[in-house]
C-alpha cells in the first residue's frame, strides 16, 4: 500500500501504521514524498515492512518494535531513537544521535552519521558502513556499534559495556575508553552482525574498543574525567 505524504497528513499515516489490522495481514507499505517530515514511522509495534522513499527529518522510526523500516534517503537527528526491536535500514546518511538510547533491534546505516551516534545505547546493534562523528557511543551501556569507516573525536566517552568495533581510524578515544583484545566470542558476534548487514568483510579487520571500567565508582583521582 502506498501512503503519499503529499496527500495524507503525517499523523494519519503514523496512526495507520501503528494500528495494523492483524487479521487482514497487509504488511507491506511504502511512504512516498516524506519531504523531511519529523517522526515518520514513530512508535510502530507490528512486524510490518515499510519503505520510505526519500529524505526524512528527526526521530524517524523512534521507539520501533518489530517493524522493518527502510529509508531510501537521508535521515535527521535521532533515527531509531529508543528502538526496542525490529530493523531500521538507512540507505543514505544519518544526522546526530542515530540509535540514541536504543534497547534492541538493529540499525544499519549505509552512509555516514554525524556526532553522538549510539549515545547512551542500551542493547541495540548499530552498523554504520561509513564513518561516525565525534562523541559516538557516549555513555553507551550495552549492545554493539560497528563502524566500517573512521570515528571522530572522543569515541566511547564514559562508556559502560557496549562493544565498539571500528575498521578505520579513530581520531581520539574518550575518557575511560580503550582498545581491547578481540576474543573468539567477539569475532563470532561481529561475524553475525556483518552478515546481517550483508557484508563479507572479515571480523579480523576491525579493532575492538570498550570500557576500561575505571570510572564506574567515584574515585577522587579521576575527578577531572567526570
Amino acid at each position, binding site marked *: 500500500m502506498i501512503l503519499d505524504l503529499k496527500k495524507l497528513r503525517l499523523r494519519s499515516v503514523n496512526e495507520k501504521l501503528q494500528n495494523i489490522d492483524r487479521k487482514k495481514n497487509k504488511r507491506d507499505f511504502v511512504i512516498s514524498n516524506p519531504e523531511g517530515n519529523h517522526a515518520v514511522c514513530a512508535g510502530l509495534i507490528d512486524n510490518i515492512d515499510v519503505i520510505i522513499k526519500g529524505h526524512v527529518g528527526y526521530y524517524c522510526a523512534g521507539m520501533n518494535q518489530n517493524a522493518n523500516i527502510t529509508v531510501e534517503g537521508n535521515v*535527521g537527528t535521532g533515527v531509531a531513537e529508543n528502538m526496542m526491536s525490529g530493523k531500521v535500514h538507512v540507505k543514505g*546518511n544519518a544526522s546526530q544521535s542515530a540509535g540514541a538510547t536504543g534497547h534492541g533491534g538493529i540499525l544499519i546505516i549505509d552512509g555516514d552519521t554525524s556526532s553522538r551516534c549510539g549515545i547512551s545505547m542500551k542493547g541495540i546493534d548499530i552498523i554504520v558502513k561509513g564513518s561516525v562523528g565525534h562523541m559516538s557511543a557516549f555513555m553507551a551501556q550495552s549492545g554493539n556499534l560497528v563502524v566500517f569507516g573512521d570515528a571522530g573525536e572522543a569515541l566511547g566517552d564514559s562508556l559502560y559495556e557496549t562493544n565498539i568495533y571500528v575498521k578505520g581510524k579513530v581520531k581520539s578515544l574518550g575518557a575511560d575508553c580503550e582498545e581491547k583484545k578481540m576474543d573468539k566470542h567477539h569475532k563470532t558476534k561481529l561475524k553475525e552482525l556483518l552478515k546481517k548487514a550483508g557484508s563479507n568483510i572479515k571480523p579480523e579487520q576491525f579493532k575492538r574498543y570498550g570500557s576500561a571500567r575505571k570510572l564506574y565508582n567515584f574515585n577522587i583521582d579521576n575527578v577531572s574525567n567526570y
Partner: protein
Amino acid sequence: MCGIVGIYLKSKKFEKSLGGMLSKMLVSMESRGPDSAGFAIYNRDKNKLFKYSICLNEMNFDRFKKEIKKKIKFSKLEKNSDHVILKSIEKPSKIVPILEDITEISLVGYGKSIEIFKQVGKPSNVVKKFDLNKFSGSHAIGHTRMATESAITTDGSHPYSTGEDECLVHNGSLSNHNNLRRKLKKNGSKFNSDNDTEVAAGYISDSLKDRNLKQTLKKGLSDLDGFYTFIAGTHSGFAVLRDEIACKPAVIAETKDYVAISSEFQAMAHLPNVNNAKIFEPDPGIVYSWGK
C-alpha cells in the same frame, strides 16, 4: 531553537525565483521560530547607488519623506510595508549619521547589493507583508526567531548587518557577548540591542577590516563562546560555520545550479531537483564558503 536558511545561486537560472524559493524555506521553518522573521537579499548587479534598508517603526512615511528631502539632496525612496529602501549615490559615511539622527527609525542594513527586511510576527505573515516572492537576486539569507536572551522587537530580529553589504543570521546563543560588546564598543563599534547575535555580527565586521570572511570565522571559533550555526553574507556570497560541539543543526544541499542551507531538510524539500542534490551536514568547526 530558531531556524536559519540560505541560498546561493551558482547560475542565473533561478535568479528571478530566488525570493519565492527563500519564502517557502522561511515558512517551513516557522515551527522553529514563530516570534519574528527576516531576510537579506543580494543582487550582484553592478550598482552605483547605495541602498539603505530602513524600518520606519511607528514613523509616518510622508513625514519621513519630508525629513529626508530636507537632509539628502539626491535620493529615491521605495516603500515596502513598514520598510523603506533609500537609494542614493551618497556614501554611507555621509548618509548613516543622518539616518541615525532620525531616532524613530531603525537602519537595518546598507550596501550596494544588500536589502534587509525584518519584523516581528509569524514568518508566514512577515514573508507576505514584504512580498518576498517577487524578489530576485543572486543569494539570500533568512531567519526565523524563537526569542531567548533579548526582547521580541525589530531590533531583536535577524539578520544583523553591522557593515556594508554584510549580514549575519544565527541559530544558538553566545555566552560571552557582554564582554565582547564592551571590547568592540571601545574599538568604535555601535550596537542597537542587547542581542548576542548583533555582537557576533559586530565582531565579524570589525575583524573583516584586516581579514577575509573565512579567516574571520576561523578566528571566531576561539573568540566566540557558545552554541552556534552561523550564516554570514557578503556582497559576493556566504559562509557557514558551526561551533565545535555542533548541537545546532545545519544541512546543506548542493546542485549544479545552487547551494542551499537550512536548519532542517524539510525547509529544502520543495527546491528544484533537491532529491538529486549532494546533501551533507557541515562538519563542526569548519568554515564552508561560496562566492568570494
